[in-house]
C-alpha cells in the first residue's frame, strides 16, 4: 500500500514539473489541417505554374515580381488559415484539458517561434525584392523547421523531429530549386499531416 503513495507522489512531482515547463494542449488535428491547406495550395501553384517544375529563368527576369504575386497571395492565405486553425483548435484543446492557455510556457513558446518566423519572413521578402526567387521556398521550409525545433523544447518533443525533416526538405530544395512545388507539397503538406496524426494518436488529442 505504502509503495503506491510513494509512486503517486513521484508521479505528481513529475507531472507538476512537466506541466510547468511544457505546453501540452497543442492540437494534432491542426497539423493535419495545415497539411491539407498546403496541399490545396500546391494544387493552385501547379495550376498557375502550369507544370510541377519551376522555371527560374522565367521568374528571375524583369517581370518576376508581377509573376510571383499570385503565388505569394496563395501562400500567404494558406499561412493565415493554418495559424488560425492551429490557434483555435489549441485553445479549444486547452479548455477541454482545463489547462491555462496563457502562462509562462506559452509565452516562451510564442516568443521562440516568432523569431525564426519573422526573420524568415523578412529574409524572404528581401529575396523577392531582389528578384532572386531561387531560395524562397527553401527559406520557408528551413525557417519553419528551425522554429519547430526550438518550440519542441516547450511542447511535444516530436516537433523537433518534424523540424529536422522540414530543414532536410528545405536543404534538398535549395540544391534542386526546380522541385520547389513538389517539396512544398511534401514539407508543408505531407509532413504536417503525418506529424499531426502522430501527435493526435500518441497524445490522444
Amino acid at each position, binding site marked *: 500500500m505504502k509503495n503506491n503513495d510513494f509512486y503517486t507522489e*513521484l508521479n505528481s512531482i513529475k507531472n507538476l514539473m*512537466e506541466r*510547468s515547463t511544457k505546453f501540452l494542449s497543442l492540437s494534432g488535428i491542426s497539423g493535419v489541417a495545415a497539411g491539407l491547406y498546403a496541399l490545396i495550395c500546391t494544387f493552385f501553384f501547379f495550376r498557375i505554374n502550369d507544370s510541377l517544375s519551376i522555371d527560374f529563368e522565367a521568374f528571375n527576369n524583369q517581370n518576376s515580381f508581377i509573376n510571383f504575386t499570385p503565388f505569394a497571395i496563395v501562400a500567404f492565405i494558406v499561412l493565415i488559415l493554418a495559424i488560425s486553425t492551429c490557434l483555435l483548435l489549441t485553445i479549444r484543446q486547452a479548455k477541454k484539458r482545463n489547462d491555462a492557455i496563457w502562462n509562462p510556457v506559452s509565452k516562451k513558446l510564442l516568443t521562440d517561434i516568432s523569431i525564426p518566423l519573422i526573420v524568415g519572413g523578412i529574409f524572404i521578402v528581401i529575396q523577392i525584392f531582389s528578384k532572386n526567387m531561387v531560395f524562397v521556398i527553401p527559406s520557408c521550409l528551413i525557417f519553419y523547421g528551425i522554429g519547430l525545433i526550438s518550440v519542441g523544447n516547450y511542447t511535444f518533443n516530436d516537433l523537433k523531429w518534424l523540424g529536422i525533416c522540414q530543414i532536410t526538405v528545405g536543404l534538398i530544395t535549395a540544391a534542386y530549386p526546380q522541385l520547389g512545388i513538389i517539396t512544398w507539397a511534401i514539407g508543408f503538406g505531407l509532413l504536417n499531416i503525418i506529424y499531426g496524426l502522430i501527435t493526435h494518436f500518441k497524445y490522444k488529442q
Partner: protein
Amino acid sequence: MSVLLANDYYDFNSLKELLKVTDGNLASHLKALEKEEYIDIQKSFIGRKPNTKYATSPLGKQAFKKHLQALENLIKQQK
C-alpha cells in the same frame, strides 16, 4: 518546489493558476518554504501592480533532491 526546480523562477499568479489553489493557501505554503530558506523571493512592480517571483535557493534544491532520493529509496526497499 517541483515547479520551482523545473523553472528558473515562477511568479505568484502563474503558480496559483498551475496548482489551482487559493491566494491564501499558496501564500501560507510559500511562507513556510521561505521560513526554511528553501526559496528566494524577488519582488518587483509591473507598472503599478506588484509582481513577486519565486526561485529555489541552493539549500532548497539540496533539500528537495534529498526528498526525491528518500522517496526512491523507500520504493526500492518496499520491493
